[in-house]
């Protein structure tokens, strides 16, 4: 019990205070690329300092420590109920330690009991597999970037977006335009083409567990990802929406089957403070490796 809880607290701590290497490297490249002496460059410099300071002080990169989203790959026979209970205990403890803000509000009463535990908080998604490995991935997704996510239903007459890949491209780029700097850019898009309204958003978020420098194995989606990234960075929205060269650090897209009647394109936006991490665990819950 304690080994698992301690491991989950450490996973939460590291996710909240340290950016993964792939994101760090992308931010360093965007700083090098930005025009010198601009407010965009100075924003990226402050971001750079902030990343270093958060890690050194073991304090949250961003004060909005976000929705707490666990994804667990587990073997057959894994005790999910025990795991979920331990997750809630770890979240409560991590909040007391200041790795998480008191961030969960009762939507009906407006009360914040300070524990970060309640209906839908945290969320734990289990996925059973044939391997003996236990892998726990965590994303902390802040509200600012969550609020600029968007779901489009095609066709969309206003955007002249039809039910094809070009239509998908139009609505995805519209989401980038509408987001401007409000989601704390430079951001990362997770996209799902198809699905229903719930699975579309869900799959779009799961894209955030891909590394920034990976390439999509589907050639059409790969081309779409590269195209959106290139065009978004030509729009001049820039870091924080200050104007500048880097609007997005990455685009990750997937597809899901849809009903003949529905064609949703779901877009989740992740801020530069891209808090995702993962661990593999031993049978008793000790950390055996880090995934990012």
């Amino acid at each position, binding site marked *: 019990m304690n080994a698992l809880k301690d491991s989950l607290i450490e996973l939460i701590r590291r996710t909240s205070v340290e950016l993964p290497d792939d994101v760090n490297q992308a931010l360093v490249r965007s700083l090098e690329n930005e025009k010198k002496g601009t*407010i965009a460059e100075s924003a990226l410099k402050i971001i750079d*300092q*902030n990343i270093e300071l958060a890690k050194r002080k073991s304090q949250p990169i961003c*004060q909005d420590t976000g929705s707490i989203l666990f994804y667990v790959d587990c073997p057959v026979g894994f005790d999910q109920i025990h795991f979920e209970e331990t997750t809630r205990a770890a979240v409560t403890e991590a909040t007391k330690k200041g790795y998480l*803000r008191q961030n969960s509000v009762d939507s009906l009463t407006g*009360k914040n009991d300070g524990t970060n535990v309640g209906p839908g908080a945290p969320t734990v998604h289990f996925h059973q597999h044939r391997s003996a490995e236990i892998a726990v991935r965590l994303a902390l997704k802040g509200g600012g970037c969550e609020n600029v996510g968007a779901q489009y239903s095609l066709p969309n007459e206003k955007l002249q977006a039809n039910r094809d890949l070009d239509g998908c491209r139009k609505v995805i780029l519209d989401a980038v335009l509408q987001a*401007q700097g409000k989601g704390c850019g430079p951001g990362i898009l997770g996209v799902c083409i198809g699905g229903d309204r719930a699975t579309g958003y869900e799959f779009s978020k799961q894209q955030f567990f891909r590394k920034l420098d990976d390439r999509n194995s589907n050639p059409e989606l790969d081309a779409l990802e590269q195209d959106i990234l290139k065009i978004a960075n030509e729009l001049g929205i820039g870091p924080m929406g200050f104007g500048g060269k880097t609007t997005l650090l990455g685009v990750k897209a997937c597809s899901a089957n849809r009903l003949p009647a529905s064609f949703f394109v779901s877009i989740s936006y992740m801020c530069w403070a891209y808090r995702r991490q993962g661990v593999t665990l031993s049978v008793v819950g000790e950390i055996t490796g880090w995934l990012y």
Partner: protein
Amino acid sequence: MISLTTPITEEKIRALKVGDAVSISGIIFTGRDAVHKYLHDGGVLPPEVNLRDGIIYHCGPVMMKQPDGSWRCTAAGPTTSIREEPYQGDIIRKFGVRGVIGKGGLGDKTLAACKDAGCVYLHAIGGAAQVLAECVKQVRAVYFLEEFGSPEAIWELAVENFPAVVTMDSHNGSLHKEVFAASSAELAKRL
């Protein structure tokens, strides 16, 4: 870098233009969604919360209570401001606010209030919770902690050299409108 120290005069605010980098020192008050709605609904501020010639910071910090009962601010970046657009202009006018710190900018109603009342929008770097918490030298007091919860309470902060950029000035200038228009035009060329 232009220094701004609270309380701030109207003259000092009127001299600021979009794109100016500023460094803020003095007393500032956090206030976000719950506070703005409360004030909009006619809620009253405690006498200690004097916003006249002062600054509201859209921020829900991480605060750790210390053994002696004081508070330590361990993370304090800005939250997205646009949610306060329905309320912000009225609050600027009613309370004589000179500066609003946040991220992402506000809309036309607030821009009009900035022009009429002499106020600016000061854009802090979103997500830079540690750099900005370092600028918080003292947590002086907290109001509405029970009612609104820690992130939504009004925290009275003494800050030094808090960095921000003027993105909406008191002369109808808005970087957010400029960038939106320019990026819309660029996108239209590529569709």
